């Protein structure tokens, strides 16, 4: 992990029991691999759970966007527990409520609706990431 060259940490929830957890994971990959690979870094939640120093340092040093698949908001809570700041928390269910036609199904393998919902989540995160990066690069940024 090289947090010094990444601007925004993306932390998906790791949810394994429901389709929204898979959407969260897929959206995180889309942002960090396809849409904004140079300005984002994926952080594995299991490392934060175990208190891995490198992962904790990453979320402490950079703004984090969390993606949660259910109301228990594990990703947001773990970033806060790790001493990091959640710049923006995304709830997959909220994005789904705004895009009712994208009904996700499947956990091991998402259906088309799930992939499209993940894309919608990723697009929302991209806007947030661009805003955070612009703020970090602004001349008056401390």
């Amino acid at each position, binding site marked *: *992990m090289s947090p010094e060259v990444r601007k925004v940490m993306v932390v*998906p*929830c*790791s*949810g*394994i*029991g*429901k389709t929204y*957890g898979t959407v969260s*994971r*897929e959206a*995180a*990959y889309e942002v960090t*691999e396809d849409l904004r690979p140079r300005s984002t870094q*994926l*952080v*594995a*939640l*299991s*490392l*934060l*759970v*175990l208190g*891995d120093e490198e992962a904790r340092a990453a979320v402490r040093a950079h703004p984090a966007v969390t993606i949660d698949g*259910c109301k*228990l*908001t*594990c*990703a947001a*809570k*773990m970033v806060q*527990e790790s001493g990091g700041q959640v710049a923006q928390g995304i709830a997959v269910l909220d994005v789904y409520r705004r895009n009712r036609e994208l009904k996700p199904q499947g*956990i*091991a393998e998402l259906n088309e609706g799930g992939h499209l919902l993940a894309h919608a989540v990723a697009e929302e995160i991209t806007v947030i990431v661009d805003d955070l990066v612009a703020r970090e690069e602004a001349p008056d940024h401390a």
Partner: protein
Amino acid sequence: MPELPQRKVGIVACSGEELAEGTVTRLAALRVLEHLRPGETVTICLPLFLAGGEGDRAFARFYPTIALDGCDKRCAARATELYSGKPAAGVVVTDLVREHGLGQPEGARRLNASGQQAVEVTANRVAGLVDEILGGQWSRHSGSFVEAAPAATPEAAPQAGCACASAIPVQTVDVDGQAVPVAALPLIFEQFRGAGKAPGAEVTKELLATVKIYNDVPAGTDGAYLAALAREFAAYCARKQARP
């Protein structure tokens, strides 16, 4: 009347998003939960040990648990032991890949062929461990099998089980001066009272037998547990009688 879950095995996968092996753990866990041993397994999201409540943290005390890790950091095994209870068994994907001479899994987002093979091998190993655990009596306290016992009967309608929204109720009781959290005790009391069982020596013995299904009762402490259960069940029934 409440239904106590039948004895099942809990599977905790690291799901590490950064590594292909993390994706292998996730997919292997799901294969066991959905296809290989659907009626005999249940899972929980690893972060709930910290982000959830006491009922979530009781998971590995309630279910004998298999920790499924992608790498030798062993986040799932270590976090489960740290926050919930000692896993009954652990599987590390990188070890299995080496043992079976598989190719390197690649593609955390989309696994390559070696990654898919690793999913198969890992899922089969976990299914075998599930059978071993259900075929023996696992002591959560000592972290080993204590004696042979009949295998649990699978449920009639298998389905993948997620414990996220069904935290296990825990009641802390005084056992010989020690505050001991007892998983599922509220459900057990409710079930016994619903069955018309009143406090008494024989019923207390039955209570202890049921408590032992879901909790590790250390050897030599039956007497202390019987006293605690007798007292707590009498108090529970009295409360219910006062406020039905």
